[in-house]
């Protein structure tokens, strides 16, 4: 029993730890003061979204390899969960930006990259709903998913170069990048568990959604 559930319990424990200890842990003195703590939630959610989109991409590839409906189901449900996390990431980011940059939406490559990602995947959902036949829908949307994901990654990679400086850390040319391993050690003790927690929670939601979709399918047949 426990063998199957351990990661769900772990996800809950990690997130519980993140939302409690995240407010107690000592953080370094910076310009943005206590809002720094949002890093545990905001960035963690982006990682959750990204993981889901990669999962979707992989399962779309798998679908085109063998045309098993199972893989298509994972691909669409992973996109759904990814979009959920994407919106959560945007809302937490907007709250944060409002305090630190003075406005909920500022012109910044990372924000634009994220917004374009959401638009791409909302379009993916609309594409799916406009194809009647089940197999055709799976095939066409898998092709779009792969095509769009690759171009989106290119977009996210080249945007900072086009836009010049980002307000986010880590994109200026002469600054040292602020990768997780460069974070203050005390923050790392919360950031890594929080990130893992969000990704596991996403996987959990994904699993439930796949089950629901399977049941719905059985009822329809």
């Amino acid at each position: 029993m426990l063998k199957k559930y351990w990661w769900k319990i772990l996800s809950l424990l990690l997130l519980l730890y993140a939302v409690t200890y995240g407010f107690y842990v000592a953080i370094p003195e910076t310009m943005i003061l206590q809002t720094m703590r949002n890093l545990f939630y905001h960035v963690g959610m982006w990682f959750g979204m990204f993981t889901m989109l990669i999962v979707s991409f992989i399962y779309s590839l798998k679908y085109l390899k063998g045309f098993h409906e199972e893989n298509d189901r994972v691909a669409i449900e992973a996109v759904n969960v990814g979009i959920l996390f994407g919106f959560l990431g945007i809302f937490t980011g907007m709250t944060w930006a409002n305090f630190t940059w003075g406005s909920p939406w500022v012109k910044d490559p990372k924000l634009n990259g994220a917004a374009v990602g959401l638009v791409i995947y909302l379009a993916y959902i609309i594409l799916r709903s406009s194809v009647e036949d089940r197999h055709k829908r799976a095939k066409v949307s898998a092709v779009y998913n792969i095509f769009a994901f690759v171009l989106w990654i290119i977009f996210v990679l080249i945007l900072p170069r086009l836009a010049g400086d980002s307000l986010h850390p880590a994109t200026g040319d002469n600054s040292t990048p602020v990768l997780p391993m460069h974070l203050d050690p005390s923050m790392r003790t919360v950031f890594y568990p929080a990130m893992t927690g969000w990704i596991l929670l996403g996987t959990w939601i994904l699993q439930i959604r796949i089950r629901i979709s399977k049941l719905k399918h059985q009822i329809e047949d």
Partner: protein
Amino acid sequence: MLLKRELTHLFLKEIRLELKQRYVLNGILLYLVSTVFVTYLAFTGTITSETWNSLFWIILLFVAVNGISKSFIQENPARHLYYYTIASPEAIVLSKILYNLFLMAILSILALLFFVLLMGNMIQNPGLFVTALILGSFGLSSVLTMIAAIASRASNNFSLMAILSFPIVLPLLMTLMKVSGSALTSGSWSGTLPLIIILLIINVAVILLAFLLFPYLWRD
């Protein structure tokens, strides 16, 4: 060699088809002229080089979406079935991309001429601008051909074409605007090489993806 022969025949077929249904081509040309005219009336006298640049590419994007969206729906599905039996899917998609490239090259030159005529010439570095135009026609035609193929499999084709392609075409469009923007502000080529390399990478990636993915779209 077989691919090359198929490609030639299919490419010629596209041209013959276009000449036969000349109203489609005329429609796009008129669309181009009217949009440029609308921007001319809306922006006359108040235009900066940045606005000039953005307007030009946005108009070209809309013209491209309009011109290419018909690629896979102008012939009836039964005829597609026939092509499927006589040609490889790779040849089909490459011939469509090549034809659309040809179309886009003509349309972008006409767009540029008409735009310059009405909005004034702000280009300082014609060589760089033309480079952007060529790479742009290439990129737009390959991305949009692929999206047209995807959208043609679904109902509600036209609005799908726009919502599927706009977010995807952005990396290309923004890099193009950056390159042509520097062709408008200075006569030098400095600093544009990395951007041109990015454009080439995007173009190669799109062609590769089209080559690999199109066979799945084609078979029903």
